[in-house]
């Protein structure tokens, strides 16, 4: 029982006395930190081992931790309320943080917008927000075109499905989620135009019970490849695999959860993004206030293809991936209708991945079964 190793009286007295001594001297033992180190704070809305959104950021933070001259501060499960303002101020005031990565969407408005003018010397880098002219200049937002990753997921799914029905467990009908659903189906339709995608919205970013129910409902309806856009894909993955469905991952690598049933996954590559940002911050270079990037920029990456992907699937996947890497690729292109029959893109019209119009998407394309309201 190694956990009890510190129960003996001597070490208890020792640590207590040492800590009391340190407290009495006015400085509570700080973590080892060389003078002049840059303190970088990472704030997560959920647990940092959620196999999803937060883990992807925590992996990025781990990469920053390995950089020389940087101290990383982390805090998980911080709600998008007054709490996050308190956490940011605590990191600034107690730990001297000068670069913050508050990673949840809801941290931006009003919390970062409120604190940034108060702490002019601190840089606030926010994931997902839409920084606009007039916002504080010591704040910025970054995000990745992960819809392309879901398009590639769709290609792997299109080759794997036998029932020609694929499924999507989604949190909320907001543009970032709708773009992923549409891209997933359009990727699959690039393989076989008869494929349909059933979507179920759970209404919350993290609601394990509903996510399991939704996955089961999709399996019951015959969907044999399932992906998702919720904060932690763990429940969806494990439930889908237990029902014999293939899984396409999201946010982080879920292959340890799905094993051979894992086709591929659309992952964030925050390790690359964060080490770059921290390096330019340390070098005193200017960081753009509005930063976006895709597969080619190293903002997102794909999980290695699983053993269930056929050779034909592998070939098409790699070919399309190369096309996306070359730039200018559009998943949403005409002729295309939404699933209510309205025209989204006329023949010859295309919305490339960088098009800002995609950031206000409010429709599901033809072939997606589900409704945005």
């Amino acid at each position, binding site marked *: 029982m190694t956990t009890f190793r510190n129960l003996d009286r001597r070490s208890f007295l020792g640590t207590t006395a040492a800590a009391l001594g340190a407290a009495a001297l006015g400085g509570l*033992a700080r973590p080892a930190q060389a003078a002049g180190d840059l303190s970088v704070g990472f704030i997560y809305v959920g647990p940092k081992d959620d196999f999803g959104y937060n883990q992807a950021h925590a992996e990025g933070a781990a990469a920053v931790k390995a950089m020389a001259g940087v101290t990383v501060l982390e*805090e998980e499960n911080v709600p998008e309320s007054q709490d996050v303002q308190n956490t940011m101020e605590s990191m600034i005031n107690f730990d001297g943080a000068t670069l913050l990565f508050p990673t949840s969407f809801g941290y931006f408005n009003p919390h970062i917008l409120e604190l940034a003018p108060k702490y002019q010397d601190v840089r606030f880098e926010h994931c997902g927000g839409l920084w606009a002219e007039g916002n504080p200049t010591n704040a910025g937002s970054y995000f990745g075109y992960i819809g392309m990753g879901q398009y590639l997921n769709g290609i792997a799914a299109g080759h794997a499905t036998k029932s020609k029905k694929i499924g999507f467990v989604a949190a909320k009908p907001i543009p970032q989620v709708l773009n992923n659903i549409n891209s997933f189906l359009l990727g699959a339709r690039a393989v076989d135009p008869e494929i349909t995608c059933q979507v179920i919205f759970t209404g919350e970013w993290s609601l394990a019970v509903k996510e399991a129910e939704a996955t089961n409902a999709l399996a019951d309806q015959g969907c044999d490849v399932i992906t998702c856009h919720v904060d932690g894909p763990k429940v969806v993955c494990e439930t889908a695999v237990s029902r014999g469905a293939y899984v396409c991952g999201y946010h982080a690598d879920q292959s340890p959860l799905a094993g051979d049933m894992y086709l591929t996954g659309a992952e964030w590559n925050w390790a690359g993004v964060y080490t770059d940002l921290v390096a330019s911050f340390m070098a005193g270079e200017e960081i753009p206030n509005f930063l976006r990037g895709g597969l080619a920029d190293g903002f997102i990456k794909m999980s290695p293809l699983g053993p269930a992907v056929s050779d034909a699937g592998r070939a098409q996947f790699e070919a399309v991936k190369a096309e996306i890497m070359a730039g200018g690729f559009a998943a949403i292109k005409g002729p295309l209708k939404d699933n209510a029959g309205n025209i989204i893109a006329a023949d010859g019209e295309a919305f490339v991945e960088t098009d800002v119009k995609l950031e206000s998407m409010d429709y599901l394309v033809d072939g997606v079964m589900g409704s945005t309201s």
Partner: protein
Amino acid sequence: MSAADQIPTRAHLPGARILAGLALRAEAVAIPLAALLAGFAAFSLFLLVMGKSPAEFYGLVWKAGFSSAFSWQNTLSRVAPLVLAALCVALPARLGLVVIGGEGAIVLGGLAAAVTGTAVAGVPGYAGLILMALAAMAIGGFWIGAIGALRIRRGVNETISSLLMAYIAIALFNYFVEGPFRDPASLNKPSTAPLAEALRVGDMPWIAAHWGVVAGVLACLVSWVLIDRTTLGFAARIAGDNVRAAQVQGLPVARLVIGFTALGGAFAGLAGFFEVAAVHGSANASLIAGYGYTGILVAFLARHNPLAILPVAVLLGGFEASSGLIQRRMDLPDATILVFEGMVFVIILLSEALYGRFRIFTPAFWERR
């Protein structure tokens, strides 16, 4: 015990009467305080098992929660919603009702405040803010008052109904925020339209915490006067102790139940108003932060005494303010503070059994000196 002991004698010690009067009050302070210390001791054992230093832990709690102006700002900014949510539990509790659904009144109050805010954008001065607060209190009062009415008119268990009504409230909230009242410009985070700058509640001049703290203090004072210093409160306490006796006496039990639950709900609604007007600036899913549930703990720890709610909420706010520093400095998971609070609370609740067991706290002990 000799016969002489049975005969009441005059107090011998000077000031013994005062001591006798203080004895009962001292009990109400000494027992929770001792329980708090016992809770700290129990959690220290837990930390030692984890191989961490208790001294460092308590040092960090002190540093993050109470040691400096910034710590107090961090602590107090959590206090306002906790105090108001706790009153939503404490007021009905004086009538013997266990209402645990304050969260519903908070989110609906916040929604009402945000929607009223867009409607009164042109109203001059503080009138707009007052209208928003009134709307929030009205809906909160209606929501929890309905639970009281269901209890007294239909015999529906108020604990279950308030909990379930909180789920309904959150579902309604989500529907309205994502549907009819959604600001079309709020793309990836459905919200109501942002409030005008004139309709925002600012910070107090002496510390960076919003005016909700003052409102919470006032609400506690009003509740204390109502319960301890008015006939209405007296009637409510009788009904809470023995509802049959109250009915036989001809006390308006039904009106008391509905009135007290509605007042508690109004305070919870007010918490929603402050969250929207002082913190978020619009109503959105971030409002569902669980203050209504933490308020239950505060109220029970304060033994439903409105004046005790204040120090308990400050203590709890300080504990929660230290959560981040403990995660960062001690490499402990964020649940550590929950374990800590849980252990302290269980021991404080156990200490309820100690009341009346110590002769030192009885007036008779002092009168005989």
